[in-house]
């Protein structure tokens, strides 16, 4: 075994240990440890990705303590796993750095250390969710991720985040309960928890026609549990308050990273446990398609109706999650590729939009309403650039990352009877709605000021870290939009590994 194969395990264990160590450290040191660990995680994930891209199989399994199933626990990494861990770590680090000056004021001084601990736990959970090869371990880290993200949300010293956290927890608990029952039911039918053994057992049972109903129910519960946790319509009502009231760094992490981790786990379960054939035969994909399209419409219409910038961004997240589920609803490799790219585009864009919204609202005394924000881009040019880049990406303008998934969804939609029309019409309407609310706010921020109020000029020099981070995010978005082919090739290889190597 090569040393690099230990990196996923080392990342998880180090993050968990540093969460404990941060308890004993002072605020600044705790922050240094947390952020450094994210940096180290980025290096390790990149190493695993390069290792798998250059190795013959592109896949390895790491057995904890070298025990076999059913006692042992496994980590498995193909190409998609380290790629998404890398993406999540980069966006987490950038969100934290970009929103660092806001963390100073939003979070009570006595809780800065706890904030760092929650960052560590989130990091460990995200890494484990992507790499795990055991369905019960996945459940445990889903719960750790929920608790840590809820604590990140509650860290802000206001009452509204507490109320938002309660709502978030309620939906999360419903999702967790369904997920747990689904996993237990699956275990009772198959007697396995590791993905390869589960896959073999499900295949055997499905082929012989045994336990078809319990299997379908178990799969349905697992899919619906993770869909609720990731905010699929109609279970997206927690998003508005959760994303809009957290400190901007946490909003970026919650909307851009954590919801994607749940979806990645779902994709992994569909690919490695259920298998695409059984997933399609069970009919679950059609349900996801319908809810995904509904999410695109409901999220966009809600975003148009609001007059609060952060609420609009939160509703837009519901619409973007709908796109991902629409792709999963088709059940083909091409649509899965589009969904994976949509996850990347959204993860790259949404934290940038939340940070930019923070930069814009800071110029007008933290107000979020559109009237006050008119002309705010002139008072914080970098935030204006970041917001414009994010808005254009979400609208789907070519050269930005958001364009590629829309193109891939359109191409993958053909040849599916009524689904083709549903997807193409939904894409057209949703794009028009995106243009309405994103371009309206973008033009607003560059338009003439209408409200006479005290404004604060924020320049590159006065907010250097924030400005550098937003510009880096905009640049990454542009590069991904202009050079999408390497990522598409990587996803094709990853999907091939998902479906062929067990």
């Amino acid at each position: 075994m090569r040393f690099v194969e230990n990196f996923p395990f080392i990342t998880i264990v180090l993050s968990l240990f540093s969460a404990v160590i941060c308890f004993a450290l002072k605020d600044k040191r705790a922050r240094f440890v947390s952020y450094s660990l994210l940096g180290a995680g980025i290096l390790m994930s990149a190493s695993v990705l390069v290792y798998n891209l250059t190795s013959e199989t592109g896949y390895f399994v790491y057995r904890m303590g070298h025990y076999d199933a059913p006692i042992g626990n496994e980590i498995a990494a193909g190409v998609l796993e380290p790629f998404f861990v890398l993406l999540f770590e980069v966006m987490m680090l950038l969100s934290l750095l970009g929103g660092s000056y806001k963390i100073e004021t939003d979070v009570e001084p006595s809780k800065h250390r706890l904030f760092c601990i929650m960052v560590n736990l989130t990091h460990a959970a995200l890494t484990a969710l992507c790499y795990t090869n055991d369905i019960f371990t996945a459940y445990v880290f889903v719960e750790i991720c929920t608790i840590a993200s809820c604590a990140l949300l509650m860290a802000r010293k206001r009452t509204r985040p507490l109320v938002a956290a309660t709502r978030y927890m309620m939906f999360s608990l419903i999702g967790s309960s369904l997920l747990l029952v689904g996993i237990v039911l699956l275990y009772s039918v198959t007697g396995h928890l590791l993905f390869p053994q589960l896959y073999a057992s499900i295949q055997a049972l499905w082929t012989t026609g045994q336990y078809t109903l319990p299997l379908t129910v178990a799969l349905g519960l697992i899919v619906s549990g993770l869909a609720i946790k990731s905010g699929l319509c109609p279970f997206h009502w927690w998003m508005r308050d959760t994303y809009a009231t957290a400190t901007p760094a946490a909003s970026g992490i919650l909307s851009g990273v954590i919801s994607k981790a749940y979806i990645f786990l779902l994709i992994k379960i569909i690919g490695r446990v259920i298998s695409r054939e059984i997933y399609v035969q069970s009919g679950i994909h059609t349900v996801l398609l319908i809810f995904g399209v509904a999410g695109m419409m409901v999220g966009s219409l809600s975003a148009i109706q609001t007059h609060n910038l952060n609420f609009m961004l939160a509703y837009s997240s519901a619409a973007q999650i709908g796109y991902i589920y629409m792709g999963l609803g088709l059940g083909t490799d091409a649509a899965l590729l589009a969904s994976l790219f949509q996850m990347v585009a959204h993860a790259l864009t949404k934290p940038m939009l939340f940070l930019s919204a923070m930069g814009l609202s800071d110029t007008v005394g933290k107000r979020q309403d559109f009237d006050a924000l008119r002309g705010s881009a002139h008072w914080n040019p970098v935030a204006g650039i970041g917001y414009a880049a994010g808005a254009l990406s979400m609208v789907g303008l070519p050269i930005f990352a958001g364009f590629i998934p829309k193109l891939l969804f359109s191409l993958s939609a053909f040849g599916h009877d009524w689904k083709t029309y549903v997807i193409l019409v939904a894409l057209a309407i949703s794009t028009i709605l995106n243009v309405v609310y994103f371009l309206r706010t973008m033009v607003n921020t560059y338009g003439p000021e209408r409200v006479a109020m005290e404004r604060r000029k924020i320049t590159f020099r006065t907010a250097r870290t924030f400005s550098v981070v937003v510009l880096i995010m905009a640049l990454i978005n542009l590069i991904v939009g202009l050079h999408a082919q390497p990522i598409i090739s990587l996803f094709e290889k990853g999907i091939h590994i998902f479906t062929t190597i067990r």
Partner: protein
Amino acid sequence: MNITLNLEELTAMLLFGIGFTMLVFSRNLLKKVLGLNIIDTGVYLFLASMGYIEGNLTPIVPPTGPVDPGIYINPIPTGLVLTGIVVSVSFSALMLALAVRLYKKYRTLNLDEIYARCDREDGED
């Protein structure tokens, strides 16, 4: 279906149903936490019943001599239950901490009232 043979499973389903109803429909935050715990209890009962084999021994392997796996109960579900208990205790603790802070602020545990008052205070949307 023989009810006596599936008594544990039926009880587990009943507990899950009661807990899930409380979690979804009750407006009282404390009752929701109770609902969560009832759900978890149902799931643990279901798991434990799957691992239990009538007449078999506790899975503690003797230090010497041959080992026959056939004489022990399945230890995996027991391990899952232990892990699950840790998760549910953590969730309950967090939810109760939230409930205490919200009660201190609003003097109620009714979620509808808390949401309404919070919206009124902020005057947003």
